């Protein structure tokens, strides 16, 4: 069980790095959607008894993170005529190195954290920290609004991984609530993106600094 879970989390961590290294928006969105689906099936491995509730949440997560949100992003891209280049503020190689360093640091750090014994062998905590860090690097280091949304989604994935630690004590409803929030957020951003595009002819967040007053 644990090895399978670790394999999935390892894959998710690898996807983090691919997200940092990808230079095209569609591939970035693909990576985010793949990661969302990966994380979506994880409760199945963690929970020992399957229930309808669990299945519903899994389906909702996979559908939401893996299909709906990426679909929305792709539609926003098409609607707003955004170019496919990612337009990095921090170069790809430096962000990749940052992400890798962060991942190694997360693994090293989680060794010294006082975790519950049943979580000690799992990669959940380092995976969560690495995803959060990747999300931040994307949020800081990319100019376009869509890639920022992707960064935000990866950040959320990290928080979701943290949430999995508490899966036994917290009802899955909480996660469902978070997911709902995110979906609504992406909706809103999608609409805003469209408006911004119409108003400014650009989606470069650097140009939004005029709005600071």
């Amino acid at each position, binding site marked *: 069980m644990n090895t399978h879970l670790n394999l999935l989390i390892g894959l998710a961590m690898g996807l983090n*790095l691919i997200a940092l*290294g990808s*230079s095209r928006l569609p591939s970035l969105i693909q990576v985010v959607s793949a990661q969302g689906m990966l994380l979506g099936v994880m409760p199945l491995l963690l929970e020992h008894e399957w229930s309808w509730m669990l299945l519903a949440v899994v389906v909702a997560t996979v559908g939401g993170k893996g299909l709906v949100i990426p679909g929305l992003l792709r539609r926003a891209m098409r609607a707003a005529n955004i170019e496919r280049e990612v337009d990095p503020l921090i170069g*790809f*190689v430096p962000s*990749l*190195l940052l992400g*890798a360093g962060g991942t*190694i640091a997360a*693994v090293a750090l989680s060794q010294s954290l006082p975790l519950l014994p049943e979580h000690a062998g799992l990669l959940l905590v380092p995976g969560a920290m690495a995803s959060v860090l990747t999300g931040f690097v994307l949020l800081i280091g990319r100019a376009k609004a869509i890639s920022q949304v992707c960064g935000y989604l990866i950040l959320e994935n990290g928080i979701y991984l943290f949430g999995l630690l508490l899966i036994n004590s917290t009802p899955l409803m909480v996660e469902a609530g978070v997911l709902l929030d995110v979906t609504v957020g992406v909706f809103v951003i999608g609409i805003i993106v469209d408006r911004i595009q119409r108003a400014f002819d650009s989606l470069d967040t650097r140009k939004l600094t005029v709005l600071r007053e």
Partner: protein
Amino acid sequence: MNTVLDLIFRLAWWLILAPLLPGIINKVKAWVAGRRGPPVLQLYYDLARLWRKSVVMSTLASPGFIIGPAVAWVALLGAVILVPLGPAGAALSFWGDVLLMLYLLALARFCTAWAAMETGSAFEGMGSAREVSYAVLAEAAMVAAMLSLCVQTGSISLATMLAPSAGAGAVLLAAGLFTVLLAENCRVPFDDPNTHLELTMIHEAMILDHSGPPLAVILHGASMKLLLFSVLLTEAVLPMGDLSPFAATGVLLGGVLTVTVGVGLVESLLARFAFRRVPLLLTTAVLLCLFALLVAWKGGAA
């Protein structure tokens, strides 16, 4: 007597088998594209023809233009002799021979770059500049891969390092080493060996001015290097030491064939990357090998 036979067998494997690999790659590419393609033995014909031809040397070139390829070829031969061949083991094995192998590859690189610069051509300058610069990252990946095998096996001698499988990090290691193989042997997506535009070449740009026997030596050396990397990749990932000699031979041949076909498929399905993307891909290879190292470290500790 036995050692002499062993050496002859080894040299035969490396010297005679090596030019087969580019032929297989080309055949795979032709097959994917639906063409008939050149014969598998094409490189042998080419080498034989080049060996008989006369040499054209640039008016600017010094004797280093001919000595360079010779030294590079000897360095590559020295490197392949150190690599164990499945059940046959290595011809010569000592503590730390893996470093000698890496540095012999570097010697070959230095000599090829030096011979290329002899002609004073800007194209060959470009080729060697790219070769030596990208090799920096490839070298880091190779060393990280070597370290992960060191940690895995607790040895720094190729014969024992390559015997067991690479453990949990095998997939990472295989992906990293395969990328390095593509980069070091100047295959797509790093370089296109079949391009006709000098500006976009790496290895081929370096040997534009070579002809006759020196070119034959360079081409043969390049094919030996490809074989060396495929053997390394196969033996690093698969548990050669646990198999019976027959099975190991089969696995080794199968592994080399798989890698070669893989290179051919990659060449058919991918386009060459823009040069500014090359460091990114190589950094990824470094990271893959580095993570394999970490997995090996953790795996051993637990």
